[in-house]
């Protein structure tokens, strides 16, 4: 059943680094009639902890899920990492009785119990499932005719199929493409669209993620796209914030603006570039700013 009211899970990276994503998302969702309820007392989704202690990561994720269960609301997040982690915990703890008992023992210490009664959604799911493509089209006042872009859906919205597979085609993603096409911009195909940005290991080793992303930026540029569209703060950091560093490391020039999907949609809905903080993007999307 379509919903219009969600518990908003902000995560860590967005408030720390990417106000542009939060501001543009709140503006766009507000105009679309989506009510975001602030989530009190939430903590990190648990993603970085999974590598250190999976049981703790599941416990941290489950605590967030319990907060949503208490209010009987669906979680909405803008971050692929948060979505992947919270959704995985929600799926795994429903399926694996022994694991659920273990995590519930931990949660008992803080007076909580995971029941598995709510759902976790990413922005793109709310836009496509709850609002719907047809309804979204009605909000497009300023079609971005002539703009050609590439999309990067990002790993944790696509894989593993056993946890998220029903939401998109993991080998040939279509959801974000449909969302882009309604803005009037044209979404172009390019090589290796489903490939990772590599940002999750940047704190361990810089060389590999830089090589991975350089290749991606090359493929997007080769397609003729004027910008790359993301729906994940981590991927956005990699392609936008780190783009000048990648250019320097390999002595190449991309100058490829990277937009949050909410910025692209916002422009099509008639918001001004400054409302959507487009000037904050590191690689300046000059075709909108001038």
């Amino acid at each position, binding site marked *: 059943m379509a919903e219009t009211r969600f518990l908003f899970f902000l995560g860590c990276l967005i*408030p*720390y680094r990417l*106000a542009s994503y939060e501001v543009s998302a709140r503006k766009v969702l507000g105009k679309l009639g989506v009510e975001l309820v602030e989530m009190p007392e939430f903590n990190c989704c648990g993603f970085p902890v999974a*590598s250190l202690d999976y049981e703790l990561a599941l416990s941290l994720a489950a605590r967030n899920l319990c907060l949503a269960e208490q209010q009987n609301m669906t979680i909405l997040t803008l971050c692929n990492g948060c979505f992947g982690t919270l959704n995985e915990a929600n799926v795994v703890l429903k399926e694996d009785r022994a694991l659920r008992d273990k995590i519930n023992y931990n949660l008992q210490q*803080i007076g909580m119990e995971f029941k598995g009664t709510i759902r976790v959604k990413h922005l793109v799911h709310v836009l496509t499932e709850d609002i719907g493509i047809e309804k979204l089209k009605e909000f497009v006042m300023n079609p971005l005719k002539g703009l050609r872009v590439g999309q990067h859906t990002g790993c944790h919205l696509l894989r593993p199929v056993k946890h998220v597979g029903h939401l998109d085609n993991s080998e040939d993603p279509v959801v974000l493409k449909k969302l882009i096409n309604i803005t009037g911009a044209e979404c172009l195909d390019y090589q290796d669209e489903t490939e990772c940005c590599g940002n999750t290991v940047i704190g361990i080793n810089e060389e590999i993620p830089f090589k991975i992303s350089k290749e991606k930026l090359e493929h997007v540029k080769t397609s003729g796209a004027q910008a790359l569209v993301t729906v994940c703060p981590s991927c956005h950091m990699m392609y936008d914030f780190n783009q000048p560093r990648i250019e320097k490391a390999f002595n190449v020039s991309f100058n490829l603006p990277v937009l949050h999907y909410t910025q692209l949609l916002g422009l099509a809905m008639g918001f001004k570039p400054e409302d959507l903080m487009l000037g904050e993007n590191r690689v300046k999307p000059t075709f909108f700013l001038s």
Partner: protein
Amino acid sequence: MPERKKMGNISKHQEEDSKPAKTKRIDPKFKYEIMRMPGAEKVHLCFQCGTCTADCVVARFTDFYRPRKIARIIQLGLKDRLIGNEALWLCTTCHTCIDHCPQGVEVSSIIRALRNISVKTLDTMPSVFKIFASNILKSGYIYLMPESRLKKREEQGLPPLPKPNLKDVAKLFHVTGFAGTLEKSRTTENVKTEGAN
């Protein structure tokens, strides 16, 4: 062109690894230890087709990391070669290997299990992870949000950041035993792969 490293360099003991494994270095129960960890239940089913390595974005850019070999080394019980092996930290968790494995082996979940065991048995972790985990304990978030940023939210018309429940977070760190691990763990250097092709 740099010479390709034999065995894909998944161990820090290269010299030793080129020799046949000695029986005393084999832990016959290691694979069962791994199979008890969530997501790693099917490691014994790996038949070494190499799809995980072929489709791995990291393996494409460095021969330092080979998921297929990691699965084989588990099956062989060569625990020492994997526990504490820095190459484990190169997995980006893109999960392509999980989706493409014809045997249903959750390769990236196995990497996660090996990271967990490494942290627990050696009391070491990469510094970036120690910072993130310590920050969660201090602030609920992986970052310590500076005052200036909180103030800026106001100017940007954003609602204040919700206050975390640090007591609850600390209890979860303690009940899982991870609080102790975090406190005593040393940090490891960043993984060097320079010149990797």
